[in-house]
């Protein structure tokens, strides 16, 4: 319907004649055609039937930038062109960004500052929870039994299935891999030592911690972060409920109490998984397997595993809640903070695990 007649005069530049619609639908084409014409340019609007603001804008910017002359505009078109001109206030589309080396340096600096702040913030948050703990101990009636019990269910009971399955499978994998390697020395029977000690000392607790961080640490961060965005936390504060007492303490307690129980459950299932493999593949009957386990696992190994568990639980809950509390502004932050919470807590758990390993070796729990 809309067809343009372009005529280029030899002496007085070119004339761009638009017929039909001058609207957003033809915006790209119109702009391209205008760009192709030489100056001085005259735009003839006498045959335009419909013009919208985008069409008007294209005409306006051509006049503004190239000094084009507009002829044949009707009264409505003139007023639309005037209106569009009123709104000519150039705005940036994205925030100004420094380039190259400056940006790299800026980002490095921001990262360092952010890391320092996080560390300091985590320490401060740790302090705030201690104060809240003290307050709850002083006035036990403020302790939220229901919230804590509910968290026990979510963090502990509902994790039994997945942690049990994971542990069982890992038990089989360790037994299988161990027996293959040990068979080369004719020492398959030591597979039981391997399973028993690695499970009690390290794997049971560590795998549970990683699972809890992924399951509950992330949930803590997301729940608290969302409550931060919807201003629920602010509402709590103004009503006089301490968010640390109401939200953080129940989560911390549940993680600290549930972690050793889950770790123990995980050890049990890993040993069962390993035992199954040993029984079916190496022909060692369960009763012998259990007797051997009793002989080769010193009780201290169990303690090593179980002492670490509540500490890991504490770290996971602390970092989950802390990152949740740091959420500000938009919903994207909930996602980012949840990711940070999981990464941070797994990292801290592994660092602490190394510290524990050295510590227990030095006190003679070998």
């Amino acid at each position: 319907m809309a067809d343009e007649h372009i005529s280029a005069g030899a002496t007085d530049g070119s004339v761009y004649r638009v017929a039909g619609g001058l609207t957003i639908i033809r915006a790209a084409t119109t702009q391209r055609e205008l760009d192709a014409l030489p100056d001085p340019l005259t735009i003839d609007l006498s045959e335009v039937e419909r013009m919208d603001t985008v069409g008007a804008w294209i005409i306006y910017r051509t006049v503004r930038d190239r000094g084009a002359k507009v002829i044949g505009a009707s009264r409505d078109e003139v007023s639309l062109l005037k209106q569009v001109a009123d709104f000519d206030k150039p705005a940036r589309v994205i925030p100004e960004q420094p380039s190259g080396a400056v940006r790299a340096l800026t980002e490095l600096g921001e990262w360092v500052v952010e890391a320092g702040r996080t560390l300091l913030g985590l320490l401060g948050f740790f302090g705030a929870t201690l104060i809240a703990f003290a307050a709850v101990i002083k006035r036990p009636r403020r302790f939220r039994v229901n919230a804590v019990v509910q968290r026990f269910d979510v963090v502990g009971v509902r994790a039994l299935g997945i942690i049990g399955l994971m542990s069982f499978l890992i038990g089989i994998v360790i037994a299988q891999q161990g027996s293959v390697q040990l068979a080369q020395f004719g020492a398959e029977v030591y597979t039981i030592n391997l399973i028993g000690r690695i499970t009690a000392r390290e794997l049971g607790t560590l795998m549970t911690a990683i699972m809890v961080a992924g399951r509950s640490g992330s949930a803590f961060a997301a729940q608290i972060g969302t409550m931060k965005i919807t201003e629920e936390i602010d509402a709590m504060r103004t009503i006089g409920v301490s968010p640390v007492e109401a939200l953080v303490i129940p989560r911390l307690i549940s993680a600290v109490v549930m972690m050793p129980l889950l770790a123990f459950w995980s050890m049990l299932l890993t040993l069962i998984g390993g035992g199954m493999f040993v029984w079916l593949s190496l022909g060692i009957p369960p009763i012998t397997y259990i007797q051997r386990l009793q002989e080769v696992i010193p009780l201290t190994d169990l303690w090593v595993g179980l002492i670490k568990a509540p500490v890991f639980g504490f770290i996971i809950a602390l970092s989950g809640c802390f990152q949740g509390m740091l959420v500000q502004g938009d919903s994207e932050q909930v996602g980012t903070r949840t990711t940070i919470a999981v990464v941070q807590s797994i990292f801290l758990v592994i660092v602490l695990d190394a510290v524990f390993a050295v510590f227990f070796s030095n006190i003679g729990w070998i």
Partner: protein
Amino acid sequence: MTPPGCQPVIEVRGLRNSFGDQVVHDDLDLTVCRGEILGVVGGSGTGKSVLLRSIIGLQTPDAGEICVLGEDMIGRNEDEAKNIRRRWGILFQNGALFSTLTVAENVEVPLREYFPHIQPPLLDEIASYKIAMGGLPPDAGPKYPSELSGGMVKRAGLARALALDPELLFLDEPTSGLDPMAAASFDELIRSLKERLGLTVFLITHDLDSLYAVCDRVAVLADRKVIAVGTIPELLALDHPWIQEYFNGPRGRAAALGHEDIVEHSKA
């Protein structure tokens, strides 16, 4: 109830919406004419937002016909619906700006979606003047939604709704949460945009001042239906208890005082 010479832009016939046992709309009829600003009022929970969602196709009604810009909306496939969606703009109650994009990028989203061939410099200029048209200062362009105040979020949402030069504009409580000055200037903005661009506006509001200031006609939602449509003087002449209470309550009177010309006109 329809004024003479009305060219219907939105036609709703026999609409029924329900959630479980709760029936929100039952046999609801409504017509919006070209070039008018229709205000929709009603108590909380009378289904104003559900009506809007039904018209724009976010909610499939149990029964009824909905016709927008001459096209039947029910049972449309995605491609056909796209052609109609290009011709309207919607301002959601809370702005619904994309939080990971700046204001200017938000305005560019519909433009990029429907007209991917527009040259980037032209696109940025179009976004700039839509932002200015929405009543925002130029420095709002590169800001993210989380950095904006409530009023600015609404203006940015309006700028995005206007991006495609729509014929039809849906506004869901545009002045809620704004201070009276901001609300008044928003009313002024809508009025002037309507006059400049010849828009048809479907306006859900609780703001009595807005009703008096901008609406050509007002539709009242109650008892799961549109119980009355008309100019404010016409509605005042009805003796439905809810309408009387709404317009003649203390707030209704205060709003009417500020717009005496309309009320006086009704008596004359």
